[in-house]
């Protein structure tokens, strides 16, 4: 066993770190605008964030796993890990086109036509075109294959009608990758197609939804006779389900998520060491100390699970099991860290963020709600447990086969 990276990889890390330090000012501006939030400067903020991704791209730190011919780096797995570690460590805002970079890009690389790859991939990398994902619907959440948004083909055009929901980035996205039903009579997984939709097409209405944390992060998207050229079909007609699944299967080692949790935990430890409690500080309370220690233990467990996943990936094995375990455990740990933070705050945990009495300007309430979002988005914790039970432990399906694959949802 050996947890070290090769000298070449460490040099790569040093170069990236140096680059990040040099661009600190640019970064601080982008971060400030992204977090500052007022609607007056929201357009500036988006512009800054696009610029930030573009400069990172030009320096060679975006699209690491992508083929060179479409603007990627074809970097090694360890370099990908190092890059996400360093970006996470440097407190940079997440890349604005993350959805395009992590979901659509790999899908197009694998299943897109040559024209689609040349047309779309470079602009994902530069953030010239921002992407959102149109999968979930009001009646199709965990049971995604129950989706009802219809696309009817007429010659070289699809006409799309329906509604998507929980669509992050929708108000600012230029494009959306959609799952639509093209054959309502087929079994539900076999009548679905994968389309690329220009968000500026007439017939699209975006209605932002306010989430439980109070922020505007996702939207409803209504599609009414939206015309999509047939050249924007990805893969085979009615073959969209397996394409969508293949990208969801592109699990990462989860190591970059560990870094953001680590940053949270270090902050929390510091808060506990300074926040007054009785005659001392919160950290003097033996129960809280133990709970913080337990969070550290869990974090290190997750980190080292990530190293095992990475080992499997480097060896060319499917990380399958440890990736699904990591995803579930990370979401739970995120919410446990936030829960511990609210205990550390003690009675001040009732104070809202705009109050001058708020601990750490209310960041732990934000972390708490954020954690709840993480345990739902991209597959609820219950669905993750189903996945582990069925695919890893080999237990029988909890939902009968006919309901999983079943007949089409009809009209």
């Amino acid at each position, binding site marked *: 066993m050996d*947890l070290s990276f090769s000298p070449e990889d460490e040099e790569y890390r040093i170069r990236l770190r140096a680059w990040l330090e040099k661009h600190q000012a640019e970064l601080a501006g982008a971060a400030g605008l992204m977090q500052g939030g007022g609607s007056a400067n929201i357009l500036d903020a988006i512009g800054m964030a696009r610029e930030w991704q573009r400069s990172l791209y030009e320096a060679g730190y975006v699209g690491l796993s992508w083929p060179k011919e479409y603007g990627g780096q074809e970097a090694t797995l360890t370099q990908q890990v190092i890059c996400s570690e360093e970006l996470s460590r440097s407190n940079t805002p997440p890349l604005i086109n993350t959805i395009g970079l992590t979901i659509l890009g790999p899908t197009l690389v694998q299943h897109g036509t040559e024209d689609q790859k040349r047309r779309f991939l470079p602009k994902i990398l530069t953030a010239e075109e921002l992407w959102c994902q149109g999968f979930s619907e009001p009646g199709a959440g965990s049971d995604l294959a129950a989706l009802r948004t219809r696309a009817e083909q007429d010659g070289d055009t699809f006409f799309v009608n329906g509604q998507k929901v929980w669509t992050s980035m929708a108000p600012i996205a230029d494009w959306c990758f959609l799952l639509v039903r093209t054959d309502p009579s087929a079994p539900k997984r076999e009548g679905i197609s994968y389309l690329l939709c220009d968000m500026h097409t007439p017939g699209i209405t975006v209605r932002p939804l306010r989430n439980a944390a109070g922020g505007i992060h996702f939207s409803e998207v209504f599609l009414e006779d939206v015309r999509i050229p047939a050249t924007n079909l990805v893969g085979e007609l009615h073959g969209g389900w397996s394409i969508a699944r293949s990208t969801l299967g592109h699990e990462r080692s989860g190591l970059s998520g560990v870094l953001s949790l680590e940053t949270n935990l270090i902050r929390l430890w510091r808060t506990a060491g300074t926040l007054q409690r009785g005659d001392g500080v919160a950290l003097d309370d033996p129960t809280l100390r133990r709970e913080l*220690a337990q969070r550290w233990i869990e974090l290190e467990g997750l980190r080292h*699970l990530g190293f*095992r996943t*990475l080992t499997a990936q480097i060896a060319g094995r499917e990380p399958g099991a440890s990736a699904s375990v990591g995803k579930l455990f990370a979401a739970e740990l995120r919410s446990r860290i936030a829960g511990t933070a609210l205990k550390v705050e003690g009675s001040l945990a009732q104070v809202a963020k705009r109050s001058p009495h708020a601990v750490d300007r209310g960041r732990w309430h934000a972390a708490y709600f954020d954690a709840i979002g993480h345990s739902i988005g991209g597959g609820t914790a219950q669905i993750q*447990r189903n996945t*582990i039970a069925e695919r890893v432990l080999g*237990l*029988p399906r909890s939902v009968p086969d006919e309901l999983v694959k079943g007949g089409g949802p009809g009209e």
Partner: protein
Amino acid sequence: MDFELSDEHIALRDSARDFIAERWSPDRMRQALDTPPAALDGDIWQEMAALGWIGICASEDRGGSGGDVVTAIVLAEEAGRGLLPGPLVSAIAAGRALDRCGNSELRVELLPALFAGDSRATVAFDEPGGNPGLDPVQTVAKQAGDGWHLTGTKICVPDVEGAGTVLVPAAAPEGPLLFAVPAGTLTVTPMRRLDAQSIGEVVMDGAVLPSGALCGGGDLVRETFDFLALLTAADLLGGASAALDTAVAYAKERVQFDRPIGSFQAVAHPLADAYVACEIGRSLLYAAALAVEESRPEAPAYVSAAKAWAGETAVSACETALSVHGGIGFTWELDIHLYLRRARAGAVSFGDADFHRDRVAALVPGLDGYSVERQEEGKAR
């Protein structure tokens, strides 16, 4: 970057699993509950010695097998999985302590017979009153002429019946010291362990030891404690995985309401959670083993992390496994209670979860990656 068992580790694991399944059975543990303590037949111990297990990670020039720390956790995990009783784990730990001690006469005198399986040694940490013994208080060593006077009591000493040498950490003015004490100078009284393994109380009433009985100081005491805690964590995870495997197999076969019970989420999800906990535990175990192997400063924190997590995981995995079996799970004939007993006992051996969490809380702020100052610097940059 390579953070999985090597092919050699996997080969050792497989052969250990086969050997234990062939030469020992959970039934023997069940019988031992009525006639404690569980004891290996003499020839099994000799065979394990011949396989090089007792000195598995001791240096080759002293008769050991020269394996890394991971080889030892592989064996301990298989012992837990196969419900193999001591003295394998305590003997490996005692052997490693002697192998690493600065006293070459002791090494020459004790190690060959120990590794050959001809004599046995164990380690006595626990003290009455709930002190796991990393920092001995009640057991005191006083210099007397050329030698030492040892007084105090140790409890829950594993496999002490029949051991020729007991390694005893004791408090001295210069800090904790580790002594190799001949069993003849001690009073040993058997205690009964929840799972029928052998433990005993050891009383030292002013035992007089020659100066040559001193093995080492605080570092060796700490290393030895960490090593035992690490092997115990491995044993616990081995048992947890075995119990989980049994429950998963049962959940696939057992039909109620015309369906295999594993298709009910109320059954499947706790099993998934137990699996997650075992995988996290194995990751912590490897992290700790590697840190111990490389003698890194964070080793104690990682060992404590692994031990705290493994103890709680083993107990909850066994409880889940038992409840998934329903009424059958609560019978004497089913093996799950044997695993649960071993888990409950192991979880509080060499420090319970709270002891290890307290230790983590004391150690972590000093670790490089967790220094608050480093974060502050990062922000200021």
